[in-house]
């Protein structure tokens, strides 16, 4: 064998090892005890693959590669150091970067190969560019909404779905023309530009509560576009990495939509925000019971079991560290404290778990919906902090409710329910929550962080 052949073989074998490391990386992530080993495996696989690629003998110039690698690392470090509350928008931003990379490489490949592009190649190349482009702008929009630089309220207009589907259909139509005749180089910019516009319009009607599903969906698109790039470049490593990312995003999207009792199409094409609060008049007529921090603390301190239900409101108020102090105060008194995490609590899958783990709350106290729901009937106090719709019993009881059928945390089955809330205004979806009018519910009005702080003080003083 010549040295060139030996190098090629070596590169292929290193790619094979990298692929195995990537799969092991995800396998080890399944449990918190082995998860960090998973990150190490992923890092090693990545390092090996990049080094092997640099050996590729077709490379004639290293200057720009080196500059780009250094620049990327410089940008990457601050992106790895963002605050935990900013993780959802950071994740959306990284989907955008991944998609950008794929779309740019696809574009270059097309212009290098046109007009001699075989039909299958042109088909996957089009898919790569279309998915990459729409994921790029879609993810940027999602990041902007999460960072609150863009309006978070869903924006809807008449014929929105027709416009969006029309744009997508036109892109696919143009791709078909390019597959039939790859020489139409003037058409190619359109299958970049139209999906770029589609990506923006796709996220315009999406509201905050739908973000976990949408981020997962964008994750899946980013993965699929990378897999398509693998087909174009005939790289099994890329196909596998893309397929893993794509299936991960897909699984998360399915879990998130199930947790909201909605289908993908319903999330993408039916904005939640336009729902009219059906019974606003009735709501005003009903009364609620409220309590002071002192009263609440005496009930909490005397309880045997307390379940805390955190929601996005806790993240907004940055209350997780105060919640930790509160948890400590109760545990010191011998109270059994657990946390109930709804799959769509927060703005991305697993958002609440990360925030609470950051505040040093042991992860075995964080229980997901299926684990905690059977425990609510034996719970003395369920304390809801900044969550609303995921605790709304209307989802179980009123078929007319817009969220009917959505799986919820059964906090209304606890002996006493406490809800920390700024005011009686309805939640994101504008849906009234009958939980607040139950006889066993005490409303604790105030800012989540301040109120939990008061509770801690009362518990310490008593």
């Amino acid at each position, binding site marked *: 064998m010549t040295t060139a052949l030996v190098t090629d073989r070596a590169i292929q074998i290193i790619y094979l090892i990298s692929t195995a490391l990537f799969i092991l*990386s*995800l*396998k080890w*992530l*399944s449990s*918190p005890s082995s998860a*960090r080993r998973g*990150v190490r495996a992923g890092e090693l*696989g*990545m390092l090996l693959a*990049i080094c092997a*690629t640099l050996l590729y003998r077709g*490379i004639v*110039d290293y200057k*720009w*590669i080196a*500059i*780009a*690698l250094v620049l*990327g*690392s410089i940008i*990457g470090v601050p*992106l*790895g*150091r963002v605050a*935990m509350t900013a*993780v959802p928008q950071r*994740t959306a931003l990284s989907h955008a970067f*991944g998609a950008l*990379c*794929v779309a*740019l*490489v696809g574009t*270059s490949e097309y*212009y290098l190969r046109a007009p001699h592009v075989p039909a299958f*190649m042109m088909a996957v190349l089009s898919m790569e560019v279309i998915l990459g482009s729409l994921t790029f702008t879609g993810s940027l929009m999602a990041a902007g909404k999460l960072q609150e630089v863009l309006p978070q309220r869903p924006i809807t207009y008449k014929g929105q779905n027709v416009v969006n589907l029309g744009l997508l259909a036109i892109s696919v139509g143009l791709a078909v023309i390019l597959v039939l005749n790859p020489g139409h180089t003037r058409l190619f910019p359109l299958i970049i530009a139209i999906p770029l516009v589609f990506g923006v319009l796709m996220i315009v009607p999406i509201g905050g509560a739908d973000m976990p599903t949408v*981020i997962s969906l964008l*994750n899946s698109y980013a993965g699929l576009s990378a897999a398509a790039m693998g*087909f174009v470049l*005939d*790289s099994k*490593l*890329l*196909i596998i*990495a893309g397929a*893993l*990312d794509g299936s*991960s*995003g897909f*699984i*998360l999207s399915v*879990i998130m939509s199930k947790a909201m009792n909605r289908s993908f199409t319903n999330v993408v094409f039916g904005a939640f925000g336009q729902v009219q609060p059906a019974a606003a008049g009735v709501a005003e007529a009903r009364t609620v019971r409220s309590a002071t921090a002192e009263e609440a603390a005496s009930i909490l301190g005397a309880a045997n079991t307390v379940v805390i239900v955190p929601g996005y409101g806790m993240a907004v108020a940055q209350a997780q560290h105060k919640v930790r102090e509160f948890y400590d105060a109760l545990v010191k008194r011998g109270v059994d404290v657990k946390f109930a*995490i709804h*799959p769509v609590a927060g703005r*991305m899958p*697993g958002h609440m*778990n990360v925030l609470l*783990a950051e505040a*040093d709350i042991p*992860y075995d106290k964080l229980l997901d919906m299926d684990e905690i729901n059977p425990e609510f009937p034996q719970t003395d106090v369920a304390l809801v902090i900044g969550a609303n719709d995921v605790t709304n019993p209307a989802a179980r009881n009123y078929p007319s409710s817009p969220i009917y059928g959505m799986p919820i945390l059964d906090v209304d089955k606890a002996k006493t329910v406490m809800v920390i809330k700024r005011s009686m205004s309805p939640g994101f979806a504008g849906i009234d929550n009958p939980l607040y009018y139950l006889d066993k519910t005490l409303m604790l009005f105030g800012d989540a962080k301040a109120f939990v702080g008061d509770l801690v003080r009362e518990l310490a003083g008593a």
Partner: protein
Amino acid sequence: MTDIIGNIYVFMLAAFVGFEVIRRVSPLLHTPLMSLTNALDAIAVVGAIILVGEHKSGLATVLGTIAIVAATSNVVGGFLITDRMLRMFKASKTKKP
């Protein structure tokens, strides 16, 4: 001529493997899962490196360089934040006396 059918097999099997492996990831770790898969997905950087290194056209070099920057920032940032998050997950101390 590339082996299209072979690559489709690879894609299909990888999707099944991904499905089985990721289904087992606890909901507790869904955020780190997303940031880790995102970092792994940035393996697309190898395609961009070859594109830039081969220097076949000015356009390819410019677009490829931007692509490397974007993907590398995902690699570095993605692994960093995943590890930071996972370091925070601790079990109860009471379990080990």
